[in-house]
């Protein structure tokens, strides 16, 4: 059967990985290519690069990173951050990215999802949704979580599915950064109400139980995490053994 995926996320600024990195034996700890190779060797199933500068000036730097990663790491990876147009998507895919992740631009211009999936195939169009709980419901936020929209998460999920999205990267803003576990409520709600694969994000901790929980109870298809892997407080291979021992099928 299809395995559950573990996806490290690398925040890239001006061509360098940011957030603290504790890996030993890395010649260039901040080099995204070196980190990607390391994660690949440790058993990551996929990678996500988030361009957190995402200005026009930094775009070329990110493209260089994408090209270098694609030449040396042979597992799938997605790129997100500041992608606004079909041309942006084309350049990243042609540089070697397997998927792009759209967030703000998709909300502002839903037609972009349809055009992109028709041009490049649904499989490479991931829609990132930043969700926040309010008044017993969940709302979509954009602009890196700074701007609330009137869209309810489940309505948006239905919409993007019809527009041709291939996958959902669901970040719970309520759980993000807390290291107290993934948000099971929203993950389960979305996963049970869409036919698209759901990558859960936000709240991972060094306790592998948080990952078990989001797979077993949140019904996520993949789990994304950044700092627990960057800081080496949880090794991917240990996490996978933990999950495997509890009947969550993973690639070992």
């Amino acid at each position, binding site marked *: *059967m299809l395995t559950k995926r573990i996806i490290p996320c690398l925040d890239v600024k001006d061509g360098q990985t940011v957030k603290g990195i504790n890996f030993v034996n890395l010649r260039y700890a901040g080099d995204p290519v070196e980190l990607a190779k390391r994660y690949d060797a440790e058993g990551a199933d996929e990678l996500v690069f988030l361009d957190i500068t995402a200005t026009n000036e930094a775009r070329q730097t990110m493209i260089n990173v994408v090209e270098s990663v694609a030449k040396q790491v*042979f597992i*799938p990876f997605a790129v997100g951050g500041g992608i606004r147009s079909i041309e942006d998507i084309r350049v990243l895919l042609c540089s070697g990215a397997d998927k792009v992740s759209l967030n703000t631009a998709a909300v502002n211009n839903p037609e972009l999802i349809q055009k992109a999936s028709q041009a490049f195939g649904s499989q*490479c169009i991931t829609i990132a949704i930043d969700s926040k709980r309010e008044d017993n419901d969940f709302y979509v936020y954009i602009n890196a979580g700074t701007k609330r929209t009137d869209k309810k998460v489940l309505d948006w999920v239905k919409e993007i599915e019809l527009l041709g999205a291939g996958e959902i990267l669901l970040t719970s803003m309520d759980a993000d950064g807390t290291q107290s576990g993934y948000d099971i409520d929203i993950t389960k709600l979305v996963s049970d109400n869409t036919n698209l694969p759901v990558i859960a994000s936000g709240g991972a901790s060094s306790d592998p139980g948080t990952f078990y929980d989001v797979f077993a109870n949140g019904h996520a298809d993949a789990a994304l995490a950044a700092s627990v892997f960057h800081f080496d407080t949880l090794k991917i291979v240990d996490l996978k053994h933990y999950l495997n021992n509890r009947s969550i099928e993973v690639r070992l």
Partner: protein
Amino acid sequence: MSLSILDYGAGNLKSIINVLEYLNYKYKIITSTSEINNSKILLLPGVGHFGQLMNHFSASNLIEPLKDYIQSDKPFLGICLGMQILFESSEEAPGEKGLCIFPGKVVKFTKGKVPQIGWNRISITPGNKILTEDYFYFVNSYCVKTDNKEIIAATTDYYDTFVSAVEKKNLLAMQFHPEKSGKAGLKVIKRWLEHVN
């Protein structure tokens, strides 16, 4: 020996090119009938739409040259859609004919999330020397159903069992993406190239 990669406009060739360069193989990108006829080893990577690809081949008069090439038992590697079009038809494009190299049709997954995205295990047919019992990366909404048991090289379970690789002499075609399957995928591509070279 030089490898030919058939470019049909829609597929992203970058991934397979990166693997060939990593493995130190020379390649050229080809688009025409004469180039197909002159190929010694032909690779057809594929993402995209069954109907669009067959329409492109039809409009470019590539269907017969491709069929001739494959039926001459010259080395052919098909990936994803490059496997599916070897069969007769697909639910992705009703009414559209495939290359009809093998009997069988391509059907949409009816259970679970669609597309299937991620790593899944293949079970190989005993005696296969190219593939390995390992996890490979899949991204597909459709899969092959065929009654020709002799060509089945591997099967995979996604709620139901489907054909994840077929093989016949120097032809190997896979539903998964070996170029995106880490070490396991590199090993398969390397073994096949060594086998046919």
